[in-house]
């Protein structure tokens, strides 16, 4: 299918730059955007872009779906990958022509790298995958694009969609290792933490995962170890909360672990290493506001006047010293909790 790949940069040079100069486009009437010669707030398009989009409007008007439409939409997409109408029309044309999807996917491999941040690149890929139904090679492709941009929202949600949509055990099999690798690169990458939560807790039960008590122990150990690596990592603290919330487990279950992180100084009295409760490492900057907040939540959830007062003291210390930017919020927590004791 040469026409599909003809707009690669080398072959473009051999053709006239403008569609208006190409004899094979003679039969199309280009449509300029506005009847008004001087609309308000115009964008100063390049001649190339104006030409291609004028021809695109001409094509949309006649409804033509042909090989050359693929070439035209590719030209537009390369100049402006956010041109969703060009993508939409391209997709309809691919369907109408019954075009080979693997060729299109190859082109997308190239475009995704250049236009990582556009919705359409990733969505078009989804549409193609629903046609090919061959998700396996995608995981590698996604991993490679996350090397370029480790927190790209579209890339991560595409990965999650792929897993959930095809829901094939082989696809899921490597996901925890993948998360480990991403977190080894950057333990603060919240997208990777979210992905782990998605895989473990939100996408249904797969074989080997049905012993939920074991899975919860595994996840608690995992997150505790990571907190003991970097104490002030909100992603890890949120993950810890997420596990307990989603399983309706009491926060007090990890009280012993959390306590040393809320202290102002490192506790040097224990020399036994407790694997269940890894301590803050020497480099950790204590106290960790997230740990103070967590302890306060334990007290509040346990309830009773004394515990609420303990919680209030901790919130007070956040408001006045350790997390002053959120003073209003901590004071709100105190008020709300005290209301419930009265």
């Amino acid at each position: 299918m040469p026409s599909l790949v003809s707009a690669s940069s080398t072959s473009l040079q051999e053709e006239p730059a403008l569609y208006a100069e190409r004899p094979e486009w003679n039969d199309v009437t280009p449509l300029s955007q506005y009847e008004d010669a001087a609309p308000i707030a115009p964008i100063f398009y390049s001649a190339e872009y104006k030409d291609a989009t004028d021809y695109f409007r001409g094509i949309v008007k006649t409804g033509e779906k042909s090989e050359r439409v693929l070439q035209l939409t590719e030209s537009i997409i390369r100049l402006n990958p956010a041109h969703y109408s060009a993508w939409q029309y391209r997709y309809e044309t691919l369907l109408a022509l019954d075009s080979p999807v693997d060729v299109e996917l190859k082109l997308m491999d190239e475009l995704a790298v250049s236009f990582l941040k556009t919705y359409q690149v990733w969505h078009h890929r989804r549409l193609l995958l629903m046609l090919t139904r061959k998700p396996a090679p995608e995981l590698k492709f996604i991993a490679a694009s996350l090397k370029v941009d480790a927190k790209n929202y579209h890339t991560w949600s595409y990965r999650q969609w792929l897993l959930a949509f095809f829901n094939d055990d082989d696809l899921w099999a490597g996901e925890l290792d993948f998360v480990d690798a991403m977190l080894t690169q950057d333990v603060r990458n919240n997208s990777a933490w979210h992905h782990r939560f998605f895989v473990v807790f939100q996408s249904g039960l797969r074989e080997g995962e049905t012993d939920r008590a074991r899975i919860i122990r595994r996840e608690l150990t995992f997150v505790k170890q990571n907190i003991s690596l970097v104490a002030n990592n909100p992603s890890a603290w949120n993950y810890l909360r997420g596990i307990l919330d989603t399983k309706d487990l009491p926060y007090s279950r990890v009280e012993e672990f959390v306590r040393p992180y809320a202290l102002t100084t490192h506790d040097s009295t224990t020399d036994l290493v407790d694997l269940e409760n890894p301590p803050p490492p020497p480099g950790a900057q204590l106290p960790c506001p997230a740990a103070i907040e967590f302890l306060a939540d334990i007290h509040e959830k346990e309830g009773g006047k004394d515990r609420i007062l303990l919680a209030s003291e901790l919130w007070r210390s956040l408001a006045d010293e350790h997390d002053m930017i959120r003073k209003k919020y901590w004071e709100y927590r105190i008020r709300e909790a005290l209301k419930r004791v009265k």
Partner: protein
Amino acid sequence: MPVSSPPPAPRPTPTDAFPTSTSQTQAETESILLQHIPSNADAKQGLAKQSHMQFLVRSLVQGFPSRYTSQDASQPWLLFWTIQAFSALQVGLDPGNKQRIVDKIMAAQHPDGGFGGGPGQAAHLLPTYASICTLAIVGRPGPGGGWDQINRKKMYDFFMSLKQPDGSFLVAHHAEVDVRGIYCLLVTATLLDLLTPELVSGTASFVASCQTYEGGFSSASQPYYAATPSPSPSPPPSSTSDSTTSAKHARRLLEKPRPPLGEAHGGYTFCALAAWVLLLPFRETEGEQDAQPKIDVGNLLRWLVMMQGTEIELGGFKGRTNKLVDGCYSWWCGGAFALLEALGVGGAGSSAPPAGPSSGEEEEWDDMDGKMVFYRVRFAPDTQAARLIDTLFNRKALQEYILYAGQHPAGGLRDKPPKNADAYHTLYCLSGLSAAQHRISVATSRREQLRKAWVAGASQDTKISESTLPEEVRMKVFQEALAWTEEEGGSLIVGGTENRVSLIMFFAFTRRMQNATHPVFNLTITHSEGLMSYFYGQNLPPRAK
């Protein structure tokens, strides 16, 4: 403490002696932001209204440079960002320019309903929102005014054609599902009186399913369907479901799992929460309370407050955990707090200090007497009372971020230094500034006034659907949308009155112009009132003093 001593340098975000790429970019950003903290009170920067206005006028009159080609499919947005930023800066347009804007917007209306990113482009929910909101500002009824040329019936059909079995909507044909689109659709449908039970059925459940364990919302969720449509106990998730084509077979949607795709994100969170608020009038009419979808409001509040950066980040908001602060989240996150109040979180009384003396924070409260227009803001007689109506985020710090880091020296506002200004960040920084300066809430008294003045059955109507809204719900939609009122005495303006955006103007003693930003629509309250009262065929009672 002597007045001249400089404030202590704010604490860098802890790295726990374990640098990663996240902590490195964070540290780089902090060192740049640190340079933008004014060294003393005199160096404090005001809001450069004049130069922001010039920045906006330049693009409107002269046009946008070629790098804006990337916005070619967002032309109604370019207009909306610009025109709504004018509203925040209290700048009006002359009739000639208004007309040119109306004409440009109307050229983007698709013959089959909805608006596209420009003429000849496919209809899409996002530019549809931007178009309708722009028309709310510059349009009018009558020939050429835009309002009567909106094809409501076709727009409704376009909306329904995007509807998915899980209650979500595609943003355009063959396009993705995401909560921005749902927000845009619900705002448009609310403004134009297009809401019906069939349009919104299942949508609240979809929105709720996008809340992540962190508390904020993701872009979308993935539906799973039972393998067979039988109502027997749920089989494992099917691998044959197709979320982007409407149900060809009567597949049964499973309540769980419905995993969020993507992590909690400020932009999606605003859209999801605003959509949730817009759907509130429908809740009482749906089945039993237990069957109603729920969101975890406490966790949402926690996530939102955690998005506010610390002192070294000048109190700007970030959009995701462990990411950088960015001026546009001033609105997406900062603006979400008023919406939470509509759900009963925060609000009057809830943020007063629990006990003890105030901690002596300097807050500047300004009176507005004696300015060009007759307006004034009554303020609370003492600080203690003033705190009763304070917000749950740090509104003072957010204003500082916008003033010190958000303003580009050459005009316009931005993500963060040293980035360029653009139209998008100019609007959302200004809207965020408005959200931080003023307090807007649903006023019971206004709701009551609107209820009393309601004229049943009045509307623009051409019949748009067989599915019709009970009059009671329709009234509720109208009432809830327009009961938002700026709280007098609720303003806190960092840097003094010159920095005020979106003020309340009082004139002719009875008619008050509410120029504050509507927390759901991001229009001024006055523009929201104008458009909605027209499409619902209602006369608005004057606001009581």
